[in-house]
């Protein structure tokens, strides 16, 4: 972890070390009301435990039920109209939906409701099945069922994060891959065979009698266990698979839909694109977006802030280096001189050399003026805020939980907002 401005010779020493030891690097730059930090990971960085929102993780498989689930629902609903009010009012919504999906299929050539229109029609069918001649004038479980129609009647698909994992081109041979990649290969095989991911096995709370709910919970859990066992078998049959921890397989199966690959293009393919080229293409993209920002109601890019800060940092580092070469023995503490005032014009000149044309952008000119005002000094609040965000990202990288930024976070303390850019 290092802060800008930094002497070029120190920076190259740090970068060489990080590359040799495959160590993540964090660069931090804070000046006046602006800051950014940049995370440089050594190669692709997969995360399994991404902590998605609780509501997003529901996967009930209503359109691809397995025999035990189908049998359970059929048993509970075989005489649905003969149930007393208490039983009818406590049918879990999963069971209700499975029952009416069967009816729907019978009336629609064996097809599930697929379009939005069909799903809303199906929802009406469920709503109409609720009993209203009871004291409550309705049934909460049927309301839950109707509310779940649009969210849960989704055919299994491959989420983009996992697709990226499946398609990732490995720089290293199979034997040297980590447990993550061995499991990912096994899940890919599982997916190709079954056309669905391993079941996570979590059942959300729903109106039901305790005993019935727990039976249903166990049916989901048992299916999740058997899917995970199948994947563990594939893993163990692959070279190097015997050293993979079964707990790691379980965690992967539970989170498969939310697995994420950070820095995926940071491998060999990306090395051919220079940092300078990436910055220029990011600038072209961001400035183009800004043209239409007023129409799309999206916030303006913070790339100007980044450009101005790093240009000032480059200037300051060069100035400090020049002082060093003159014979000052300041050594590492030479950054005291790097805070020297750099004018807005000097900042713009540096930007012009990096991203030709950007120096004429009005927001870049303003950002350069704001950076010049700070004269290389940090404001305590902006430094504390940036430090807090860096600490948070380091926690994520070390614990491999949640999703770290990819790869640059810019903070604008005047507008009080952040933007994450891939630079």
């Amino acid at each position, binding site marked *: 972890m290092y802060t800008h401005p930094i002497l070029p010779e120190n920076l190259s020493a740090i970068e060489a070390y990080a590359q040799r030891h495959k160590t993540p690097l964090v660069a931090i730059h804070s000046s*006046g*009301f602006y800051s950014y930090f940049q995370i440089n990971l050594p190669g692709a960085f997969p995360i399994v435990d*991404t*902590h998605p929102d609780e509501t997003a993780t529901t996967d009930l498989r209503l359109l691809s039920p397995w025999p035990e689930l189908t049998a359970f629902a059929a048993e509970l609903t075989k005489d649905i109209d003969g149930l007393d009010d208490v039983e009818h009012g*406590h049918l879990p919504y999963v069971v209700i939906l499975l029952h009416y999906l069967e009816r729907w299929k019978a009336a629609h050539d064996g097809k599930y409701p697929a379009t939005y229109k069909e799903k809303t029609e199906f929802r009406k069918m469920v709503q109409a099945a609720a009993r209203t001649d009871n004291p409550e004038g309705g049934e909460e479980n049927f309301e839950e069922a109707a509310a779940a129609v649009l969210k849960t009647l989704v055919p299994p698909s491959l989420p983009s994060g996992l697709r990226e994992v499946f398609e990732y081109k490995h720089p290293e041979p199979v034997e040297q891959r980590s447990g993550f990649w061995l499991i990912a290969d096994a899940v890919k095989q599982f997916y190709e065979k079954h056309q669905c991911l391993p079941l996570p096995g979590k059942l959300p*709370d*729903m*109106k*039901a*009698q*305790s*005993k019935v*709910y*727990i039976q249903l919970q166990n049916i989901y859990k048992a299916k999740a266990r058997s899917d995970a066992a199948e994947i563990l078998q594939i893993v163990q049959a692959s070279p190097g698979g015997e050293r993979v921890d079964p707990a790691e397989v379980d965690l992967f199966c539970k989170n498969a839909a939310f697995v994420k690959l950070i820095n995926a293009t940071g491998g060999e393919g990306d090395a051919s694109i220079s940092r300078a080229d990436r910055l220029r293409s990011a600038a072209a993209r961001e400035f183009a977006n800004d043209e239409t920002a007023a129409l799309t109601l999206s*916030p303006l890019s913070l790339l100007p802030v980044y450009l101005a800060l790093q240009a000032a940092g480059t200037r300051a580092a060069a100035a400090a280096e020049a002082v060093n070469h003159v014979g000052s023995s300041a050594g590492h503490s030479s950054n005291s001189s790097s*805070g020297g*005032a750099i*004018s*807005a014009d000097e900042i713009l000149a540096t930007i012009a050399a990096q991203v030709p044309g950007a120096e004429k952008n009005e927001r870049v*000119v*303003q950002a350069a*003026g*704001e950076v*010049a*005002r*700070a*004269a*290389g*000094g*940090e*404001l*305590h*609040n*902006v430094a*504390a*805020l940036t*430090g*807090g*965000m860096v*600490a*948070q*990202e380091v*926690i994520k990288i070390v614990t491999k939980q*949640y*999703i*770290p*930024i*990819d790869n640059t*976070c810019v903070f604008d*303390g*005047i*507008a*009080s*907002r*952040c933007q*994450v850019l891939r630079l």
Partner: protein
Amino acid sequence: MASANVHPASEPARWKYLDSVRTRPGPFTDASTFNGSVVARAMETMKVLVIGAGGLGCEILKNLALSGFKDIHVIDMDTIDISNLNRQFLFRQEDVGKSKAEVAARFVEKRVRGVRITPYNCKIQDFDEDFYMQFQLVICGLDSIEARRWINATLVGLVDENIEDSYKPLIDGGTEGFKGQARVIFPTVTSCIECQLDMHAPRAAVPLCTLASIPRQPEHCIEWAHVIAWDQEKPFPQLDKDDPEHINWLYQKALDRAREFNIPGVTYSLTQGVVKNIIPAIASTNSVIAAACCNEALKIASNCAPSLGLPDANYMMYSGNDGIYTYTFRHERKDDCPVCGGQARDLPADAAWTLRELLDSLAARPEAQLRQPSVRTATKTLYMQLPPSLEEQTRPNLDKTLAELGLDHGQEIVVTDPAFATVIFMFKLKFKSR
């Protein structure tokens, strides 16, 4: 621009960087309100009140002291607990049991020369309007919605159009895990905390019948122990959520209940979490949110850059779960806000409801959240929580329907709640069309 003069504070070396920003205009500075030559002095004499000396409060006090504020006051009624030490970094092992406000004040005073911090080891409700009138800026780092609503109502109440000094900007920070928010309120001018109340919807309550007869989740068993078993058995005179013996009693009860229904997952820490409604606090989020708040304080106090609130966005939402994401937007003031608006707010109801059901809905509705409401119309008292004699007298009304009480569609009712002594909530009944 950069050639404008720097106006150094009394200790130029220490505040060199701060002064180059706060005493010189930048491209975004509003020239009509900015005067660089008086900024340092103005900030030194400005009285700033910090409410809360916990996770956010420790950060806020440190940040203000290192931002050039010199006359800081802090209120916190809590004492230091051993569990605070992981993130409330102004406290040490030997401080456990002492007042948070006092220890925090002494620590920052010692660390930052020239700063005076006045601690108050008490509740915000212990002070009257005169006390709050002396400050120019209030910053909240609280974990309680009630306290926020109280100070918000008090600051809105202070506003007197004829006294310029009666407008006290309120900066509020809050965190929950990797998420948080920082907002700025100019009382009566911009949207207030009460206007924004529905942004903090309470968690949906579990229906009593689920707790009583059909629990499914470990939380249901814990709530059952908390709400039903405790009341039936009264193992201790009063539930103390910080007493491990009490939590353990609830845990054992919940565990028995869970066994009976075959529900896995009841643990001691889950019990404590459910009962105390614990929001996990993370030091890094506190650092981000407190710094965002104090950054606004510096901008408001110095005018060296536009702050949140005027003229555009007044609310910054922060989330660090999936990358880092902020959403900074303008929350509009509501004309029917019971604190800063003048109109009665619509309250959906039903003529067939009992008064008790109406009161329950006041507790549950995200935009009301009134737990101990007393209700009257312009001419008639419907239900009063206090004094006990009046409570007894009005209690029979609770079981009467709104129709029986003569309340009609469009009727305006007045609601008060002891938690917000100074606020009168006006609602207009809106009956469901039939």
